[in-house]
């Protein structure tokens, strides 16, 4: 079997709080191949962003990785030194955030920031670095990149800023881009453009992508594989088409059925009762059981394993399959 580009196994992230330790992510595992695009879907608090951050070990205190491994290019990223990680971050694995201003520094011009990023990882001249920057800005379809290079972030619109962030994330031709809700703050027409751009660039450079989002529509457009997260665990993972057309886990089923547009105009929508449990009051057994119509027996006592279900290469964590 071919080795995966990224392999996450049994990842566990905990938060130290005054009331004790909370498990934010439990037993999360997935793989990503070269050029593959994976969507991590879930609601706020499901642990999808924490998963994304933990891949490059960017979890801020009081959180920490308490178990599992993250294999990337032959190294376990949970065990390597901060120096090695720094070399990987932004260089081999880059990240795009929801708010472009988290990446862009308002007091430097775009050009300075881009050159800085390149020079931190590569031993080339400043002039060459700026040339690469212009090239990347052209790739993200920013008109007249030579002049735009000398402008400050506030001189760009929201959509343009996100393009620049994408250009920065591409500067060093990373193997993986982790995009955390990259279009949530943008309008639909701009969202469509940004997603199209991301897709185009990933395909062209054979870059792997992990797209973290709550929007099943966005995920369907660009990814090949989806992992659905609920309360810190992956409840279902499989190919995008399969999951959207034929979800196995009751939570995924509910999510898809609950989308407006899945039923006729004006009809009542399917609704999953209740809301996702807080990390502090996680139910026993399957975390979804208080909201699940099918829950019975061991659903109340035993956490279901994520195992192969159905014909396709699908994994689901549910006792009632």
């Amino acid at each position: 079997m071919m080795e995966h580009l990224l392999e996450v196994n049994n990842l566990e992230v905990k938060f130290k709080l005054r009331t004790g330790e909370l498990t934010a992510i439990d037993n999360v595992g997935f793989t990503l191949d070269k050029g593959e695009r994976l969507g991590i879907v879930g609601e706020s608090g499901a642990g999808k962003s924490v998963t994304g951050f933990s891949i490059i070990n960017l979890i801020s205190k009081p959180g920490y990785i308490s178990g599992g491994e993250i294999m990337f290019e032959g190294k376990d990223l949970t065990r390597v030194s901060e120096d090695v990680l720094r070399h990987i971050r932004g260089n081999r694995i880059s990240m795009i955030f929801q708010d472009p201003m988290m990446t862009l520094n308002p007091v430097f011009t775009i050009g300075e920031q881009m050159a800085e990023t390149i020079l931190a990882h590569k031993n080339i001249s400043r002039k060459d670095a700026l040339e690469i920057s212009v090239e990347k800005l052209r790739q993200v379809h920013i008109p007249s990149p030579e002049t735009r290079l000398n402008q400050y972030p506030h001189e760009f619109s929201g959509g343009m800023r996100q393009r620049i962030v994408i250009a920065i994330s591409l500067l060093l031709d990373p193997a993986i881009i982790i995009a955390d809700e990259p279009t949530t703050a943008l309008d639909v027409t701009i969202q469509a453009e940004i997603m199209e751009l991301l897709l185009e660039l990933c395909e062209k450079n054979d870059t792997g992508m992990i797209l973290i989002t709550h929007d099943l529509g966005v995920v369907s457009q660009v990814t090949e594989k989806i992992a659905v997260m609920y309360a810190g665990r992956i409840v279902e993972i499989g190919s995008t088409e399969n999951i959207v057309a034929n979800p196995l886990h009751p939570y995924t089923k509910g999510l898809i059925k609950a989308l407006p547009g899945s039923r006729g105009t004006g009809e009542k929508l399917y609704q999953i009762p209740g809301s996702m449990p807080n990390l502090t009051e996680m139910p026993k057994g399957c975390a979804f059981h208080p909201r699940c119509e099918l829950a019975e027996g061991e659903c109340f006592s035993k956490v279901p394993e994520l195992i192969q279900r159905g014909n396709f290469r699908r994994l689901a964590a549910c006792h009632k399959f």
Partner: protein
Amino acid sequence: MHRENRLVTINKLVKKFDISGGFLDQLKIENKKIVRKKTFVHAVNDVSFTVNKGEILSVVGESGCGKSTLARVVVGLYSPWSGEIFYKDKRIDNLDGSQMLSYRKKMQMIFQDPYASLNPRMTVKKTLEEPLRFHEPSISNSEIEEKVLYVMEQVGVNPKWADRYPHEFSGGQRQRVSIARALMVDPEFIVADEPISALDVSIQAQILNLLMDARDNFGLTYMLITHDLSVVEHISTRVCVMYLGTVCEIAPVRNIFSNPLHPYTQALLSAIPKPGVKKKEHIKLKGEVPTPIVLPTGCVFHTRCLYADERCRREIPKPLSYDNGESFVACHGVEEKRI
């Protein structure tokens, strides 16, 4: 449509915000002379439409298109710059505070952010009692209590939690409380400003269902402000598409989605990502949304429109009415049958 069916009518509504600052900031040098010049944000420009009894009129558009401002002008949070607002047949935009009170009861609003729309220092019970005590000072305590419990049950909040504070609730529950507060005074017309966009996917369906239930049980009419077109398609009867403070198109929901006329509506609809649909071609607009401080001449959309010609740049398009006056489209291209 019959006159008596009209609930809220707005006519040539304009809202500008003065952002020129103090006197000294307003002074500018022009032609070597100092002139005093004010700067305005043109949030809503000459908007007219009618909301009919029992319908859900959705106002859609991208951020900065003035839809939230429009909502706030309609419920009286902002006073209009010019134009008229009618409730049934009574003009209400020029009423003073005490005259307005009886209309306040009829028109309520639901807000976007369930974390900011409830007073964090008031229990759910206090939040719900307050509007009723204010509008019906004669009502007895037991009646108030009864009503609070009834409305809480209607919106799906456990009445046992009446003494809790907002921070003890989840986002979805807070939004339910917020809806309950609006329902306490028996309104007829509710303006909902992005009521589900801050909520999680699995909670959105719950709140949409609640809004539809409340319409049936309380006989409500909604004006729904949203950017989420799949919600619009599901819930509304008519849709009003706004761009840069101007109405592009108003039409019944099935017409908008099956046969959008205005080029902006077409672009907007083509951009919605649908679950289970791989990437599809969407209409790419040129350029970026202009600032509402300096509006483009002529049609506000011409700088981005793929069909714009000389007339579009010069002349503001008039709303073209069809379908018995139920639908409008404001586009020279449609009028000339170019599009």
